[in-house]
């Protein structure tokens, strides 16, 4: 029995990190939005590691924040520890990482969702997406409710045909022992969407009370009150520590003795798992020469004794997991609360999407998050934000919002997803970004806040903070460029000598002087050479001055890159008409349908010669 339940501009299916951002963005942009989740309690669930950020991921969170997304604000509200990683390796790769209170993270997000205007929350399982003339029209729940909607954002994570595996035990299920979504996967196949199958895994959780911390090394957070969001107040909450221990020769012996029971090696698990997050048994087998692997014991929250064993994700049988834990220093008498498991799930092959994350198969259907073959909360949230924005823009008949590889990590990720063959769960890495030095976490606001404002996602409060910061930066830069010293200046001479750096030969500005590695901006302020300012602004000035040479080098590279990106390929291009393309290129171009010559050039199998031919064809067509 199906009944008409209502009408929405945008329907978001799935309440994980992607779904929350998508729903909030669409509603904030003025769309009447429905968020459907199988469990309200599990909104913004962190079924795996209790942390957010780290290399490349921190940059994503900052970008989400600058565009008016929620993840940065939400983790600032619910973190139990923050650390800056990669300090000393350069501004491009410095990354903030937070340990999260999982439960608080979810609770805060639910509050925000429920408080959002134009956004309705619904607990239900969507079984069908119906389209009319190749355009989405309805979603239908298991209980027969039919909602009419103009666009649908599908963010169903690892629930599609989810299957849990731990040793000989396996059953259909979603993460955290939720129900899987089986019918929706069949429905997608029926619509002509191609699916693949991936695998991921999670470690066992243990009881804090049974851990002997004296045998582990404490990993405290930084004393500095860091924050992800450009608008959060600095966190003053007490930080909780993580603890470092390691596997032993005994641990590895236990694994090898039971390897015949490991689904990873018996052929039970067929989905492809991520290389950056291998199961513990895979590490023992593949890196046999290493007799120890480090393991981090991380709290899952302030109000729980459950702890996460980072580095020990496994699908070994429960009894073996127990033995493995007991062979680890500090965990000899540990009590296991939850068993580790592997989960296999269907994902939508992302090359079927456009750069806007709209499906090329069904119009008005957007996909985001783990369903697109990615992994990571941050990757999911960033896609959710973009899918939500574009679903709203489509409703409003506006041009899609696409970030270039030269503008944001979000652009790098989505371009990779739709252009390259994703053959393992995709994780963003700083090494995937060509223009890393421009895409820093510290300048995400300078790169993106204005775009967020144009979209209608940046509210007046954020906008006024941003404008004040930008004005202060510009003013300070002007002051530093205008303030100059001559070699005759004795005070400066003494300062340089004290810093063991060469004396001046010519007149030099403060801006140029700051380029010297020994010179720090705070020294200028102490000596009254320039007015003081907020530490974020000073940090920004220091980076912009010290790395100016390298930054300019990357800007030049970006100019060359953008020449190819600006050559758009027409939507109606018929590749069969383009003579003398190689067969492989022809097939890939037809499948991926790149939006520009630049994107085409990044497809594996499309050679520089093919690009020339394509370009020639375009020019001829234009004439």
């Amino acid at each position: 029995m199906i009944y008409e339940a209502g009408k929405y501009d945008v329907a978001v299916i799935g309440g994980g990190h992607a779904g929350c951002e998508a729903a909030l963005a669409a509603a904030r942009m003025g769309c009447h939005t429905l968020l459907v989740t199988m469990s309200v309690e599990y909104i913004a669930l962190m079924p795996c590691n209790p942390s957010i950020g780290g290399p490349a991921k921190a940059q994503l969170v900052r970008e989400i924040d600058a565009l008016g997304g929620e993840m940065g604000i939400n983790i600032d509200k619910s973190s139990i520890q923050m650390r800056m990683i990669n300090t000393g390796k350069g501004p491009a790769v410095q990354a903030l990482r937070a340990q999260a209170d999982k439960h608080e993270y979810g609770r805060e997000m639910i509050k925000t969702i429920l408080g959002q205007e134009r956004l309705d929350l619904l607990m239900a399982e969507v079984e069908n997406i119906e389209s009319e003339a190749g355009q989405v029209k309805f979603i239908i729940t298991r209980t027969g409710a039919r909602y009419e909607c103009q666009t649908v954002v599908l963010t169903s994570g690892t629930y599609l045909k989810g299957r849990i595996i731990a040793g000989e035990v396996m059953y259909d299920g979603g993460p955290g022992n939720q129900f899987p979504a089986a019918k929706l996967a069949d429905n997608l196949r029926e619509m002509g969407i191609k699916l693949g199958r991936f695998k991921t895994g999670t470690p066992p959780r243990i009881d804090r009370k049974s851990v002997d911390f004296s045998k582990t090394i404490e990993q405290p957070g930084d004393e500095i009150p860091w924050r992800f969001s450009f608008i959060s107040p600095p966190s003053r909450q007490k930080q909780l520590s993580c603890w470092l221990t390691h596997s032993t020769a005994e641990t590895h012996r236990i694994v090898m003795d039971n390897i015949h029971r490991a689904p990873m090696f018996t052929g039970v698990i067929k989905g492809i798992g991520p290389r950056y997050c291998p199961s513990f048994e895979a590490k023992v087998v593949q890196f046999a020469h290493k007799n120890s692997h480090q393991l981090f014991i991380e709290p899952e929250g302030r109000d729980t004794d459950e702890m996460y064993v980072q580095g020990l994700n496994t699908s070994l049988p429960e009894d073996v997991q127990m033995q493995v834990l007991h062979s680890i220093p500090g965990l000899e008498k540990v009590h296991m609360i939850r068993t580790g498991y592997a989960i296999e799930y269907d994902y939508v092959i992302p090359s079927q999407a456009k750069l806007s994350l709209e499906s090329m198969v069904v119009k008005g259907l957007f996909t985001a998050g783990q369903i697109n073959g990615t992994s990571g909360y941050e990757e999911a949230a960033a896609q959710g934000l973009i899918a939500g924005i574009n679903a709203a823009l489509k409703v409003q008949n506006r041009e899609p919002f696409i970030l270039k590889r030269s503008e944001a990590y979000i652009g790098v990720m989505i371009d990779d997803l739709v252009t390259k063959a994703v053959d393992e769960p995709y994780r963003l890495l700083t090494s995937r970004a060509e223009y890393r030095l421009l895409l820093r976490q510290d300048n995400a606001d300078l790169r993106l806040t204005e775009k967020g404002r144009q979209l209608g996602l940046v509210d007046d409060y954020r906008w006024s903070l941003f404008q004040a910061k930008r004005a202060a930066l510009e003013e300070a830069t002007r002051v530093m460029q205008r303030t100059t010293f001559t070699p005759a200046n004795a005070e400066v001479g003494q300062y340089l000598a004290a810093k063991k750096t060469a004396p001046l030969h010519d007149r030099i500005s403060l801006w140029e002087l700051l380029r010297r590695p020994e010179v720090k901006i705070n020294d200028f302020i102490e000596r009254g050479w320039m007015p003081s300012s907020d530490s974020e602004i000073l940090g920004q000035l220091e980076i912009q001055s010290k790395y100016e040479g390298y930054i300019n080098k990357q800007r030049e590279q970006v100019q060359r890159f953008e020449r190819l990106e600006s050559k758009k390929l027409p939507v109606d291009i018929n590749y069969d008409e383009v003579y003398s393309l190689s067969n492989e290129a022809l097939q890939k171009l037809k499948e991926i349908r790149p939006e520009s010559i630049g994107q085409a050039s990044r497809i594996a199998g499309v050679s520089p010669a093919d690009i020339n031919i394509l370009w020639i064809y375009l020019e001829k067509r234009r004439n």
Partner: protein
Amino acid sequence: MINDAIAAVATPPGEGGIGIIRLSGQGSIDCISKIFVPFKEVKLTERKGFTLNLGWIIDHDGTKIDEVLLGIMRAPHSYTGEDVAEINCHGGSMPMRRCLQRCLDAGLRLAEPGEFTKRAFLNGRLDLSQAEAVIDVIRAKTDRGLKLALQQLEGKNQYINAIEDRLLRLNAMLEASLDFPEDVGDLDYEEAASILTQIQAGLDQVIEAGRRNEIYRDGIEVVICGKPNVGKSSLLNALLKKEKAIVTDIPGTTRDVVEDYINIRGIPVKIMDTAGIRLTEDFVEKMGVEKSREVMEKADLLIFILDVSAGINQEDLDIYRDIDRERLIVLVNKEDIEEKKISAAEIEVLFKGVKVIRGSVKNEMGIEELEKAVEEKILSGAVPGDGIEIMVNLRQKDALLRSRAQVVNALHTLREVPLDCLGIDIWGALETLGEISGKTLKEDVIDRIFHDFCIGK
């Protein structure tokens, strides 16, 4: 990229009377007009199609490189259907190479193998009614062109691959320490420096091997010098094994530079005999002397002949004074004559560190030794273990040099800049090297991280 102006040698490789360099594409005639000076007052850019123009291809500084006949064809009435210019230059590989280099300097791009044909097809100059068949033909040609290029690179592959592999390893080390700091820790600077040094040496080897091969392809210039009547012309003849220069016993008979092409152990050699350089009032001879000095300055190698029966006098020393010792081989001639006026001790003192051969041109004594010395001298500096058979074309050489520059920069800044900045050069070196094989290597770096390091949380 579309219709951009391209240039390439259109005639088969090797020595020929005439060589043709073909230019095609938008702006090709503008480009050529920058480096071509016509004999008659004509404006190339205004010339109609199917016209021939006699003139000079000139160098940066306006000096003449070669006298050429330049054909102009206007789009669409040309082989490619685009504006085309064809330079008919002298067929030696030197003038052709220099003319081509000037074209590239003037903004033309070196054509890919088969690119003229490809353009001809795409511009509809080939019969499209038989499109399917034509595509096959063109495919075959392009593929063959590609295969030829690949063959050319075949010997190289293992060397470039070895460098590429080291660069991949280095990139993976760096990137892993940035993306997985807790698994991998900090970059091992000692190892990074050692890998960079190996990469630089590897690039040097390949560049040098390319240069050696250039020698085999383009040849060298050798000048025979010495005071009159020491046997310069006889040596030229002995090397040529035919009479070309006038050989007499009267000093100063050879009045101009006499030149010819010979083959020394597979190396094409343009060999020149100079007029005897000596102080003289004779006007004609004076011209010859000046020309000789000019030629000697430009030569890759000089053979300085002494007459053992005449001894070493001021005249010899005057010539010797002006010679660059790096490029020198000394031949002590006429060793068949009993009366020797040059002692071993004298040679030892005067030519310390210089290759000296004692022989007699007349009796063909020492000729083989001399040829061997020429080969050794020219190939010296080239790396031992000469297995590296690489043909490096201009584009590849350019990529190798740019990659090397980035490696050198990374070495210089290794401990001075943060890793993210260092990464720009280390990745740049790999990316640039990838241009040679047309590979994009970003994914390979990521693969390498997971291969080399145990990553995982």
